[in-house]
């Protein structure tokens, strides 16, 4: 069953364009330029899917999330979440989705977390028994008990994010939009957040759309990746597919007994060298690992070796780098 439908979504903004003119000229006769934040993006997300929505800064990720959450109206195209049209049915939608913006808290700053939750109980009109049961569950899974009576302003970033996640899930939404939820967190806090999201997805069938710059989030949570760049969707597939497409090679680091001339064969080449060590790259579609090992053993006096499978982080870095250097006309199209 499809939970999120995005069809040919486009969103443009009118922004001030000073264009080198004086401040007075801009005041008297302001000029504007149109910024196309999202351009013809289409995808669907099934119920219970966890999907990463990746892209460099300014690619259009947060704008898409805001369109999905009913905060922004699409300039053209259609968006439906849980069968609802977000902007037109914003209040109904608010009861069905949870949203966490990593950079902004939804907690009331000066009151204890529990008080915020009590207020949200009224806002979402939750029956007391349901609220208590939900709160108990969140206490267990997010470890809220240790700081639920502390005002939001006194929480650590990790605690604040846990409390924010609790606030977003208090009313039992079926869809969760996470906009950089692990930004600024330490390793343990990130791990605890990921565990919670994974568990909620498994137990409640929660649909999750996640934007992040931390590729561990993607590796540990998502079965599918969407990549947006300059407002266009440039990839929609599994982590294995994205790796195949953007980093079609594997690197092998060799410990060698003595220096030999670098190897530069067809589809196998040396890419880095340090004293006693060199790194060789081969194209996976042309060679299997045993074939490459045989070739390398022939050329290098190998003492030891390590195979470096490409991480999602490396794949995405490569993707962003090539996107930044390619002219718009040569960027990958959906």
């Amino acid at each position, binding site marked *: 069953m499809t939970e999120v439908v995005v069809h040919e979504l486009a969103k443009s903004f009118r922004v001030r364009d000073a264009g080198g003119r004086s401040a007075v000229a801009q005041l008297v006769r302001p000029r504007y330029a149109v910024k196309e934040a999202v351009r013809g993006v289409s995808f669907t997300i099934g119920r219970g899917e966890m999907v990463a929505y990746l892209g460099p800064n300014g690619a259009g990720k947060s704008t898409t999330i805001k369109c999905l959450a009913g905060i922004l*109206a699409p300039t053209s195209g259609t968006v439906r979440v849980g069968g609802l049209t977000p902007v037109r049915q914003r209040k109904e939608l608010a009861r069905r989705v949870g949203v966490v913006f990593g950079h902004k808290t939804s907690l009331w700053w000066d009151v204890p977390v529990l008080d*915020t939750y009590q207020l949200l109980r009224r806002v979402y009109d939750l029956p007391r028994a349901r609220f208590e049961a939900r709160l108990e569950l969140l206490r267990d899974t997010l470890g809220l008990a240790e700081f639920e009576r502390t005002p939001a302003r006194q929480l650590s970033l990790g605690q604040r994010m846990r409390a924010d996640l609790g606030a977003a899930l208090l009313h039992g939404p079926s869809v969760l939009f996470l906009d950089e939820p692990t930004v600024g967190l330490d390793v343990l806090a990130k791990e605890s957040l990921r565990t919670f999201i994974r568990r909620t997805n498994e137990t409640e069938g929660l649909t999750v759309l996640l934007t992040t710059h931390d590729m561990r989030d993607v590796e540990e949570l998502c079965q599918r990746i969407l990549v947006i760049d300059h407002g266009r969707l440039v990839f929609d597939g599994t982590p294995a597919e994205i790796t195949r497409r953007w980093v079609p090679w594997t690197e092998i680091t060799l410990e060698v007994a003595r220096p030999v001339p670098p190897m530069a064969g067809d589809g196998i080449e040396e890419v880095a060298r340090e004293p006693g060590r060199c790194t060789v790259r081969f194209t996976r579609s042309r060679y299997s690992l045993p074939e490459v090992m045989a070739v390398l053993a022939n050329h290098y006096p190998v003492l030891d070796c390590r195979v470096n499978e490409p991480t999602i982080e490396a794949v995405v870095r490569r993707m962003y780098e090539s996107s930044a250097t390619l002219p718009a006309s040569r960027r990958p199209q959906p």
Partner: protein
Amino acid sequence: MTSAVGHGGRVLLAFAWQGARTSTAYTTAYWMELLNAAVRVFAVVTVWAVLYRSYPQQFPVTGGQTKTYAAVTQLTAVMLTWWSGAHHRIARQVRDGTLYVDLLRPVSYPFQLLCWELGESAARLGLVVLPAGIPLFVLLGLGPPGSAAGGLLSAASTVLSFVLLYECNFLVGLVVFRTLSLKGVQHAYHALITLLSGLWIPLWLYPGPLAAISQVLPFRSIFYTPAAVYVGYLDGPAAVRACAVQLGWAVVLWLGLEAGWAGTRRALSAQGG
């Protein structure tokens, strides 16, 4: 419909309660606010007492009424904190982007803000205005309401003052969506309130032209009406008429607020924040 009204009432009470909690979140700030309120009322009452003694023939009311008017307006101002209301909250939320968070909730933004402000004002009434005001009334020999009916009408008028001030503040706050800053607008707005609301100078002292201007604007209904009703300068039909004018302004401004917010919401939804 009944269920929606019930939900609205529960949300209002919950927000009001949290608004009250927020206003007592900082202990030092609370004690300083209490001290500030007491000093402020004492100072303003003293100034008006001196003025009355110097030029009694200029006043259409007694010295006691003059001092009480000064105390009531200042205590009402403390309760409503007109200088840092909804417009400041909107400006802050637009600046730091937290407005989006409020827009995600299944309750309208103006209603959320109204409830929050109500809670804070109610808290200041109980925790600052009464503890500072009652001893000062005794100490300075200030009077009770002109009559029991006047007292009740003045209380109702103060509730309308809260609504009116909230509406004015919210409408000023909407300007921030265009200018991204309260600067300038705020100074002009605060000047109007200072001059035309009766906060510092009772409007019965104004010369003809200025009094005429104040008659056609809503600001006099914010501080002048409840205080003038309290001291009995406005009583009987005049007091009821003044409160009816307040109510009329509250309705008109609410319609303006709804229309203004709907337009802003459309622009926000099309253009982003």
